[in-house]
């Protein structure tokens, strides 16, 4: 069984070929919509920004006055001039202190808003991920999904935190400066602004190349990271086959590609600032030269010229930092779009607006004419009709791909059928509260997943309010108590990542305990003993009787010996129920079930040829 390469949602999001579809404005608007509840904060921040800008701009103005009115003015008496200087300079200092205070506040508050936005965004993404249907996860690659939620959100955060404050205050400052400059001398302002078109052109010319180089380097670093991840995840295989040096070479190759891409990008970006600075110097020179002419014509004072020089500096600095924001901006926009693609993924299993709450169910399950396929064009289940009584044990058998696990997925409502209904205690599955239902269902999968928390907490996951006694009781019933007590820290031992400090059998036993603690009305065992060793299987089988007592149980197993005890056995083939009945009934019928059963023990038969007696041998 194999599927087409890639996941529908991630195919387009491949690092290599990503093309932006959403406009910048749309993306930003969505992002900023998180801030609607912070209106007061925003107002306050705007006010503070205005104060900071004004105090920024006033500095040179005051100093200009100091020069013109007092220092350069030989008309007034010396003492008066000196006093005047002192007064004005003290005023200047006051303003600067105010500036420090308000720019600090500005930085904190605006960043706080930004962080809030990101916080909300992250939360929403995680929440949405929890609501998405399993299909997204089954086919999607963990690494990529992680990348959306971490890297992409991070690049948005980087834009907001390092970009936002700078952007807003710089824009405000530029505006204020322009205002002041024009009020001092229109002609001089115009001359000073002559270089602005030059700067704009430079930025445009560089921008495209810088973006391309940047994207290229991002692609390469992604390769480095994924090669690294594999190197770490596959370390046991690597060491088993002594492939360390070859892996090293391979890693070295992607590493070099990354280096080259980055050096290429460096060439471009390193050129950028010096060019801009050159243009800035041109501006200053123009001001000095033209300023001189204006002084010659007695149109401006020297104080104004000095002030202008200060303002030009204050003017160009924001322009420079704005252009450096470009790369951060680009990557943030890309990140934003990818994050929104995830958020916009429709939740396939739509929850009813007003679900019927479910009290303790009896456990009756019914399939009515159910038709379903993961791909709507290819049905896996064609026409399933089944009535399960409360507390009945149903075993589901059949060849691979016949639809066994699918049936169970539908009962859990991981997917909805395309046609037909599934009823629990007579209620349509789609109309009841999923939360209530799942709390009364327990499922054991073939591959137990445990969280990186203590054994106790893992078992408690089945019922958050469970007491320690209940937890130990569940462990005892299933037969896990012994080995857990022998772990280094007993129940408080932390399960390592990937649960490598426990064997498969031990993990499965803990998973069983987890389900037991939840005391479900419907229990599903999907190949629950396929991965464990005979000892553990024996342990589980001994407890199985207790497990399925008083509950409705669905057992899917390859090992037909487990299945014999069921009240009823369902045989599925080609998406339909072809046989139904108890073990004896089906063996007598000599149909598919009987065939499967005997095939399973052909090997034992073959290996027990050793036990064939000499007489039998003569007959052969």
């Amino acid at each position, binding site marked *: 069984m194999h599927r087409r390469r890639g996941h529908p949602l991630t195919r387009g999001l491949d690092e290599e070929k990503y093309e932006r579809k959403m406009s910048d404005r749309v993306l930003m608007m969505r992002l900023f919509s998180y801030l609607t509840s912070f209106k007061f904060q925003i107002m306050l921040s705007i006010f503070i920004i205005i104060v900071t800008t004004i105090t920024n701009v006033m500095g040179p103005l005051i100093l200009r006055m100091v020069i013109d009115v007092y220092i350069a003015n030989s008309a007034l008496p010396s003492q008066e001039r000196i006093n005047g200087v002192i007064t004005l300079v003290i005023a200047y200092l006051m303003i600067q202190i105010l500036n420090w205070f308000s720019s600090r506040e500005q930085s904190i508050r605006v960043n706080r808003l930004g962080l809030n936005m990101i916080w909300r965004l992250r939360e929403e993404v995680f929440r949405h991920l929890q609501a998405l249907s399993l299909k997204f996860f089954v086919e999607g690659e963990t690494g990529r999904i992680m990348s959306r939620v971490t890297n992409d959100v991070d690049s948005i955060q980087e834009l907001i935190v390092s970009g936002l404050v700078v952007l807003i205050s710089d824009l405000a400052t530029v505006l204020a400066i322009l205002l002041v400059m024009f009020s001092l001398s229109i002609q001089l302002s115009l001359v000073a602004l002559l270089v602005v078109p030059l700067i704009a052109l430079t930025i445009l010319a560089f921008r495209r190349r810088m973006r391309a180089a940047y994207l290229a380097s991002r692609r390469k670093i992604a390769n480095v990271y994924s090669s690294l991840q*594999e190197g770490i995840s596959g370390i046991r295989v690597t060491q088993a086959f002594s492939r360390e040096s070859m892996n090293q070479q391979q890693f070295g190759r992607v590493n070099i590609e990354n280096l080259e891409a980055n050096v290429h990008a460096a060439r471009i970006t390193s050129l950028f600032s010096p*060019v801009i600075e050159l243009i800035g110097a041109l501006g200053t*020179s123009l001001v*000095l030269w033209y300023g001189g002419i204006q*002084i010659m014509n007695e149109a401006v004072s020297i104080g104004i010229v000095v002030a202008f020089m200060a303002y030009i500096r204050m003017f160009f600095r924001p322009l420079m930092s704005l252009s450096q924001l470009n790369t951060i901006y680009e990557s943030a926009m890309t990140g934003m779009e990818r994050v929104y693609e995830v958020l916009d993924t429709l939740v396939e299993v739509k929850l009813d607006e007003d679900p019927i709450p479910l009290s303790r169910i009896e456990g009756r399950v019914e399939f009515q004419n159910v038709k379903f396929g993961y791909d709507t064009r290819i049905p896996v289940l064609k026409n399933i009709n089944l009535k399960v009584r409360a507390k009945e044990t149903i075993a589901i058998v059949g060849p691979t791909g016949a639809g066994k696990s699918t049936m169970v997925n539908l009962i859990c409502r991981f997917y909805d059928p395309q046609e037909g209904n599934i009823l629990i205690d007579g209620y349509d599955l789609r109309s009841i509260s999923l939360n209530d239902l799942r709390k009364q269902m327990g499922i054991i999968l073939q591959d137990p997943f445990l969280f990186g928390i203590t054994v106790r907490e893992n078992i408690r996951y*089945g019922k958050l309010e469970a007491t320690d006694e209940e937890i130990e009781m569940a462990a005892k019933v299933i037969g896990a108590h012994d080995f857990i007590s022998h772990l280094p820290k007993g129940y408080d031992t932390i399960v390592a990542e990937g649960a490598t400090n426990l064997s498969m059998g031990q993990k499965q036993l803990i998973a069983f305990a987890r389900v037991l603690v939840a005391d479900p009305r419907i229990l599903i065992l999907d190949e629950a003993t396929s991965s464990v*060793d005979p000892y553990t299987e024996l342990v589980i089988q001994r407890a199985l009787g207790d497990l399925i007592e008083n509950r409705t149980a669905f057992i899917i197993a390859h090992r037909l010996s487990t299945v014999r005890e069921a009240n009823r056995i369902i045989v599925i083939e080609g998406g339909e129920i072809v046989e139904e009945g108890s073990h004896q009934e089906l063996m007598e019928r000599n149909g598919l079930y009987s065939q499967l059963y005997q095939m399973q023990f052909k090997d034992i038969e073959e290996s027990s040829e050793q036990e064939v007696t000499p007489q039998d041998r003569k007959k052969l």
Partner: protein
Amino acid sequence: MSSFTRLLGFLTKYWKGTALAIGSTVTVTALNLLGPIITGRIIDTILVSPEIVRENYNVLVLLSASLVGITALTGALNFAQRYVGQYIGQRVAFDIRNTVFSALQEKSFSFYDKTRTGELMSRVTGDVDGIRMFLQFGVRMLIGTFLGLGGAILMMLSMNLQLTLISLAIFPFIFLISIRMAKLIRPSYARVRQILGRMNTVLQEGIVGIKVIRVFAREDFEIERFNRINEEYTEANRESIRLMATYRPLMTLMLSIGTAIIYIYGGSSVISGGFSLGSLVAFDLFILRLTMPMRFLGMAISFMQNALVGADRVFEIIDMKSDVEERENAIILPSIEGRVSFNNVSFEYLEGKKVLKEINLLIKPRETVALVGGTGSGKSTLTNLIPRFYDVSEGSIEVDGRDVRDVTLKSLRGQIGIVPQETFLFSTTIRENMVYGKPSATMDEVIRAAKMAQAHDFIESFPDGYNTLVGERGVTLSGGQKQRIAIARAILSDPKILIFDDSTSSVDVETEHEIQTAIRNLLKDRTTFIITQRLSTIKNADRIVVLENGEIIEEGSHEELIVRDGVYATIYRTQYAPQEMLVTGEGMGGE
């Protein structure tokens, strides 16, 4: 040796580039000092009054033009400085990444048992990046700052001693602020990173364990859990920002105080006639020139802090001692026959907890040994010791009479084949995965191995056949298919000793047959240790070893153990016999 010194060590390879970058920085700084002087000159000699401007118009033009010229020169050097800086930063990052990768490859299994992938990734990516940023920008900033400072002060001193001294009064404060800022920011950054690592773990579990979460309807619980750590992360970020927001503008304030002092004192001097206006403006420009370096000083210091935190963490990984190390004089293990002996072997994962107790086993070449035992009995551990994925705590293991600790790891592992419990395939083609143990294998050998592993048919059913991509970016294979590829991989490398962990029999009845055949082919002609539940394999094994609590309680062939009527016999009867009874017809219908 401190992390800082070790980092510098990485630089020595690029001393030429570093010298060039530093040289450019020095020159640029020097040239930058000329700017204020020329401006000051212009103001003094030309702009003071309209008449003087008229007289010296040509000089004005000349001086203005020279400003541009100097900037052009500075620009060229600036480019050199930046480019070389970036180049070096990238190259050192490249070197460090290679070093860390190779260090990671050598770490023993117990290292990986203790660490989380997310954490390791964070170190090699984020931390190395921090180092790179520092080398790229920080060094240049640091040098530029100190030189710029020094040069400006010298210039100022040559213009007016007293004014210089007075205005320099602010610098001790600036220095103190820088230090304080640095001391607070480094731990703040480290904290942010650490919480990020935790958040990523929670995230990873929320994604990988989605089925469990969904099944237990614990979405709210998980969301709550995530929110808690999201909150913590945001808070830590807020704290960092608050620190930066407080200290950075403080520098600017200090310089404003400097400006104030200059204008008052210098202004008075100009008024009383000891000082020129142009010099005053130049002085102010110098102080301004000091602003840039000051601001950069703050940034440079935070880059440095970041880099040092990163370097600490990176070196921690590189330095971590591997449990399993090759001896200095390890010999190469020659081609073996496949005799394995365990001599009084004991093993404990952690202090005091013995997983294996005094194991003694003598395995002859080409023997198939089936290891049977309950959960935690020590089967996997026993097999992990042979290729030295872990070392014994007591006793010794010998292959063909040689202690495994005396030979090189490569020669040892090269002759041992492993089919692990869970098959890990790399993101490459099926063929590449299969030849992993023997890259020089021909296509014929590959196909032959695949046929023996009963994998050839399903591989050919893919459109790309052996070139089909698997792993994260490729097709998803079923458990049985993966296992057969792993078996083919092992067959291909044709080891004399094979360790086969077959505890996962996750296949349906039909493929069961194929796997049986594949296994039979695999076990021929080599010494095999197999952990399995397949009855036929166990029965066919030359020897069955029953483990319980780390000790061998029974040993022998299937027939011998049945006769002995011990633990093995009991399991056999309760697990398998009922199935057998059915096949042979006994007991059927009578239940």
